[in-house]
């Protein structure tokens, strides 16, 4: 666990915390972007180049923009009058703790179940491509179908809105 890992981890955690605690919603979205960037740097540090760059390209380049557009088009970016903390914060805390426990158990358990790698596997983009087109082609096609359905659904919703306005 090098110093670099701690720095990146600190950046990610601070970004995530800021995303929850800041008052201005757009500031929260930008802090979330910082958290995404921290994750991408962590991928790069683990030598997973494709995952890191795809993280930047997809999350920062598209998802963050989507989040910001959604905030701007649906609500006031100013501070809500009754503060940012929900009334059911205790229930939220319990659920978050539960999810964290499950994920933590899965991660820790995996070091015992998966074979212990001594050398770092050199995964190139070619390998990822082969895997996607070979072993995992069915999940790829299902995801593509899902995305197409989402796209058509979005177009239909927008079309209906236009007709509704008429």
């Amino acid at each position, binding site marked *: 666990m090098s110093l670099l890992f701690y720095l990146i981890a600190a950046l990610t955690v601070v970004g995530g915390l800021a995303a929850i605690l800041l008052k*201005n919603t757009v500031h929260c979205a930008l802090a979330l972007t910082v958290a995404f960037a921290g994750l991408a740097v962590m991928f790069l540090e683990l030598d997973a180049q*494709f995952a890191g*760059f795809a993280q930047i390209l997809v999350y920062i*380049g598209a998802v*963050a923009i989507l989040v910001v557009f959604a905030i701007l088009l649906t609500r006031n970016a100013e501070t809500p009058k009754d503060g940012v903390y929900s009334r059911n914060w205790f229930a939220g805390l319990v659920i978050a703790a539960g999810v964290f426990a499950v994920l933590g158990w899965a991660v820790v358990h995996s070091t015992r179940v998966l074979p212990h790698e001594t050398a770092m596997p050199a995964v190139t*983009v070619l390998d990822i491509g082969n895997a996607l087109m070979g072993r995992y082609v069915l999940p790829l096609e299902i995801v593509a179908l899902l995305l197409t359905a989402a796209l058509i659904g979005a177009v239909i919703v927008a079309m209906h809105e236009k007709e509704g306005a008429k």
Partner: protein
Amino acid sequence: MSENADQIFVLLRHWIVGFLPAGLQEIAGVVLSVIAIIAIFPTLFALAVWMERKGLARMQNRIGPNRAGPFGLLQPIADGIKSLTKEDIVPLRADAVVHFLAPVLLVVVVFMGIAVLPIGRNMTLVHMDSGLLFFFAMGASTELSVFMAGWSSRNKYSLLGAMRGVAQMISYEVPLLMSSVAVVMITGSLSLEKIVEVQNQYTWGLPHWYIFTPWGLAAFVMYATAATAETNRSPFDLPEGESELVAGYFTEYSGFKFALFFLGEYVGMLSISGLGTTLFLGGWSAPFAFLGWVPSWFWFFSKVLMSIAVFIWIRGTLPRLRQDQLMNFAWKFVLPFTLLDLFVAALWRFMSDGWARWVVCSAILLAVYALMGGVGMSRKHFGLRKYRYAE
């Protein structure tokens, strides 16, 4: 001798780094390369600004700036001094932190994109297996900066400009990637050095640049269109349309921050031209085999500057596209054409080498282009305009 001229910068770096102890040598080499990039690209930016002003002027039947220095060569310096000495105005209700960070983010991201471009033989700052993906990742981050600039200014017009700019950049991101995917498919690697190496071969003295293949030419045209839209250049410069939105998303910026936006835009143009050169025009490879003695970095920079000249030429010629025309063009013409181009590139690869594949690929591309063009143009009614009023 020509080998030395070609590798002069590499040898220079090696020599300078030799003075330092062994532990610091690697990082010193990287720092030197970074300093070189930070020195060269803003100089190229000044040159591009000068070329733009003089070139646009000559195309518009006038002389450009010619008082500041011989032929106006010191005009960019004068502009820089002016920007630095202007008052930095931040609107009272603007979001100061985001307002400050937007141009910083733009410049940082744009310079990082240059890190993977092969500027000459063995002259890439960072050798990456998936260099192309890194470049596009950096390009995607510029949209965020545009949005931050427009939103933090608390100005209707800036926000409108930012929204339009982001929508445009996202729409043209997909054709940009798709046209590069054709190149990646044929080369078989995402690494930019490998792409240049593959194009560095010669048949009968002519190079194997991808632009000289039918699918490559189509992909290059799509790439150039998408690149013009990505960098908000005319005819796609509605987000910064000077007559529509004052200055669009950077209305509220003055002085040095405006200069940084300007720098970011032009260096972005340079870096995307650099990528286009690498992917389609053979990067640092010479046009003819017998010209191989000229240093490789000379070819790279001349190709990039020629691409900038074409950008300026197009800016001086075409009128601005309206937002909906721009989006229609992206989704209804450019994207389907890039998908077809992918298919044709695959066909090219699987047909055996010979004249047959040239004929078949060119025929398919030309036929579909003429068809789509014909359909698109036939729906244009030039005549009395029918108005549709808002609800």
